[in-house]
């Protein structure tokens, strides 16, 4: 009778208890995988929101611009610069921008916001900005009009075809002011972005700021998140210290901090979950040991070495965990695959709360093999630690006391 066969039969001696323990492991795996996949999905969506709605994976800026975001800290878009950048491996598109702060007025109403000069065709390749135009049209190549974000438009009570006044400080202290017709209204998925400001053609923005051929940034779309460090390295190699190169993490430190703190709190939640499951498994092991103490005594009495007996009990514990882990894995993989393709929209008050926090009101899930592997390994590790108890217990077992039932 091989150890594994004996262990397998032993775990089914008390079917109900084994099933309850297996289910607790199963739910631990499913819950932790769900939680981890949702986190990854939401983080991915937040990063995508930031990267693909505005920042890009990397931005090239004037060396002082990040510390002092003034219209004076701009750099020249020399001939062939964008093409040179786009020739770097991994760079899909280089998007030029001229950005500063502006007052946006209509009649006696004024609101401060960003004024972002864009190349519509290039911008479309990075941010697909046109998809957020809910009224009117996207900017054309020679457009002199603006796109205005929803909340600012509402505040200023303006609609399509109305004219807004933009006022700001131009390049090297000049006064910048102009009248611009509203071409379209932008409605983004988050409130933060809906408060952003106006977009206009980069040539119009240069004219407005008196910043001929200048840029505040070039946003890059990289073919994969993984390639961001290598692209940054290539930029440094190519342009040395002419510019400042910032990754999306450096551009959005608050997002990185949020993700890190959220991950830390999730670790605590998972820790509590594993603790509960761990005690569940430990309870089962303790009951198994107590119920079979006499039987274990008899087995040692008739000639079974304690080490082998401990191994059988260890196998029983690991088998229970293994069944739960495999069942949890088989259930959660298709579930997460389905949810990643069909994210859950959050409606009502909760949805509004998400938007207020600048989050898209959708629960995203992402299939990340590492999440599955981590949860499976953690549950198995917890069980492995618990399953060492029988070695201690049986090692101290006094045969005669066990047989007598003392």
């Amino acid at each position, binding site marked *: 009778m091989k150890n594994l066969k*004996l262990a397998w*039969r032993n775990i089914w*001696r008390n079917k109900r208890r084994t099933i309850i323990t297996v289910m607790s492991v199963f739910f631990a795996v499913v819950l932790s995988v769900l939680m981890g996949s949702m986190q990854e999905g939401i983080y991915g969506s937040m990063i995508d929101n930031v990267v693909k709605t505005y920042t890009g994976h990397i931005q090239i800026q004037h060396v002082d611009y990040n510390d002092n975001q003034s219209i004076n800290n701009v750099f020249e878009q020399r001939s062939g610069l964008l093409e040179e950048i786009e020739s770097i491996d991994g760079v899909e598109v280089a998007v030029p921008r001229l950005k500063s702060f502006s007052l946006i007025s209509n009649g006696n109403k004024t609101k401060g916001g960003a004024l972002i000069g864009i190349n519509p065709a290039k911008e479309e390749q990075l941010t697909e900005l046109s998809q957020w135009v809910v009224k009117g049209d996207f900017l054309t190549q020679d457009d002199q009009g603006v796109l205005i974000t929803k909340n600012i438009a509402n505040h200023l009570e303006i609609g399509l075809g109305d004219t807004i006044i933009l006022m700001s400080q131009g390049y090297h202290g000049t006064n910048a002011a102009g009248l611009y017709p509203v071409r379209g209204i932008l409605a983004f998925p988050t409130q933060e972005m809906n408060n952003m400001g106006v977009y206009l053609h980069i040539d119009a923005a240069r004219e407005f700021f008196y910043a001929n051929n200048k840029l505040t940034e070039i946003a890059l779309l990289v073919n994969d998140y993984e390639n961001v460090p290598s692209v940054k390295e290539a930029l440094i190699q190519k342009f040395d210290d002419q510019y400042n190169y910032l990754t999306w993490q450096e551009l959005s430190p608050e997002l990185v901090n949020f993700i890190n703190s959220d991950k830390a709190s999730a670790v605590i939640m998972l820790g509590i979950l594993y603790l509960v499951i761990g005690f569940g498994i430990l309870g089962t092991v303790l009951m198994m040991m107590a119920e079979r103490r*006499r039987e274990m005594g008899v087995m*040692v*009495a*008739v000639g*079974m070495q304690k080490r082998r007996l401990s191994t059988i009990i260890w196998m029983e514990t690991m088998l229970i965990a293994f069944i739960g882990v495999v069942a949890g894995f088989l259930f959660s993989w298709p579930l997460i695959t389905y949810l990643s393709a069909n994210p859950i929209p959050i409606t009502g008050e909760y949805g509004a709360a998400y938007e207020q926090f600048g989050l898209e009101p959708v629960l995203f899930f992402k299939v990340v093999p590492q999440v599955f592997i981590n949860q499976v390994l953690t549950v198995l590790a917890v069980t492995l630690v618990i399953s060492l108890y029988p070695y201690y217990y049986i090692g101290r077992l006094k045969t005669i006391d066990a047989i007598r039932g003392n």
Partner: protein
Amino acid sequence: MAIIDIKNVKKIYNDNDVPVHAVNGVNLSFEKGEFAAIVGPSGSGKTTLLNLLGGLDNVTEGDIIVNGTNVNELKGSKLINFRLMNIGFVFQAYNLIPVLTARENVEFIMELQKRSSQERKSRSEALLKAVGLADRMNSRPSKLSGGQQQRVAVARALAPKPMFILADEPTANLDSASTENLLDIMERLNSEEQITFIFSTHDSRVVKKARRVITFEDGKVLSDETK
């Protein structure tokens, strides 16, 4: 020639700080093929002596020599291995492994001895046939009566071809028909296999069958009669 020598063995329990002389200066020896019963009232020390003989408990004083080996000097895995190779046990409460069939319970001990699967199979079948359970080999203990379980326990005890079998009140939980049947089987196997049987018992039917009767009282041998 004696296979078991018990020399001035004492076992003193110190429960509640009151010394209890469970076995008090016993000298006995057993020879190959004996069919001996240790009798006496409850608390006379017969089960304690069996536990000492089986290496399940330690003597306070004295020596138990089995085939030249002092059992008291064996510890841990060596002691377990000694029991495996030399001693068979039959317990009052049968104590079969519930997840194994009758055949597997018998084979289990031989597997511990690392005997070949062919030998395990043939010997377990032969022993179960000898105890009248040829048709219940694949039944688990829960599907067997008390008498049948105890017969499997006897087959299990004989399976490793031990030097002697210790049977602690083997008939205590059996009805008279089962007792008679079990005793006949053990007597026959004792003759066939020439394995020494040592019982502790209250049962007069066991005493009647035994060829040697040792009477215990207050941890001492009161009488030792061979029929």
